[in-house]
């Protein structure tokens, strides 16, 4: 009886080890769950990088869209840009949010690397970014035709990520 009791600490240790192992393994530090999924895209009224006209949340609605948050100061945005061009060429509707950036720089960037975006909203002080819970770039939101956020990806878009997101995007109405 006494001997069995001696194993109690070991058992507790193993149980706690198991709990932490599972818990820490599950934690993905690079992507926090967004509380905005299932909610309406936040209200905005912003200028467009390409031509300066002003657009609002209403202009976002009508068809499923990828909303991609990017900036010229963001190296990972450069890395995903070619893939965005590919997606756009394949008929995917992408709208850009030029996050905490300079309009002139953004225009140069689009001229140099191609423009996969239907249009880019200029968010120089990151106000819309804050409403969206953006904490880095690039981030990409899947928004349905009703303007509801359905999914969010933090980090660059690439073929592997798109393989996972594509069914969700195509399933949106």
């Amino acid at each position: 009886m006494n001997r069995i009791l001696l194993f109690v600490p070991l058992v507790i240790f193993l149980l706690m080890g198991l709990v932490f192992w599972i818990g820490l393994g599950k934690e993905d530090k690079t992507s926090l769950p967004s509380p905005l999924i299932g909610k309406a895209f936040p209200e905005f009224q912003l200028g467009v990088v390409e031509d300066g006209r002003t657009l609002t949340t209403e202009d976002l609605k009508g068809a499923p869209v990828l909303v991609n948050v990017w900036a010229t100061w963001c190296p990972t945005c450069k890395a995903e840009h070619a893939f965005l061009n590919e997606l756009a060429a394949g008929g995917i509707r992408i709208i850009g949010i030029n996050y905490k950036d300079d309009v002139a720089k953004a225009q140069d960037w689009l001229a140099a690397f191609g423009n996969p975006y239907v249009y880019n909203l200029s968010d120089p002080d990151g106000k819309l970014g804050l409403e969206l819970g953006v904490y880095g770039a690039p981030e990409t939101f899947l928004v349905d035709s009703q303007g509801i956020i359905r999914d969010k990806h933090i980090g660059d878009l690439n073929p592997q990520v798109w393989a996972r997101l594509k069914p969700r995007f195509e399933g949106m109405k």
Partner: protein
Amino acid sequence: MRSLFLTLLFLPALSLAVIDGHKYSFSSEEDAARFEQLAEDLRCPKCQNQNLADSNAPVAVDLRDKVYELMQEGQSDDEIVGYLVDRYGDFVRYRPPFRIDTLLLWGGPVILLVIGLLILAAIRRQQASQPQEGLSEADKARLAELKAQMKKDQN
């Protein structure tokens, strides 16, 4: 030596200086203290082990500005934290709320303490139930025999 000691003692306070006096101005001491407390209790989403007060990441600067702005609008601490939680999730709170899914987080230490106390009590009870038995009759006889033998050997 003393001045060096004092400098080192107050050096950590400088890390909060950024948010304290230079950028934001408050109408009262309480507001300044409230802001400082909020900035310490809110977590920077980008740099995960820092709070808003300590971090210089751009997003932390934006969030500090937002907290200040909401404070100036007259919002309560709960409203301000709620505003950020609605956008960034529970992750931004260093003090997680008490809910069903955080039950283990809050109750875990208490549960572990209770388990520890139960084990301790079980061990104590077992020790108490074992009588302090001395040597058995046979052992006593053997001891006497050995002592006699030793005496004999010494002589």
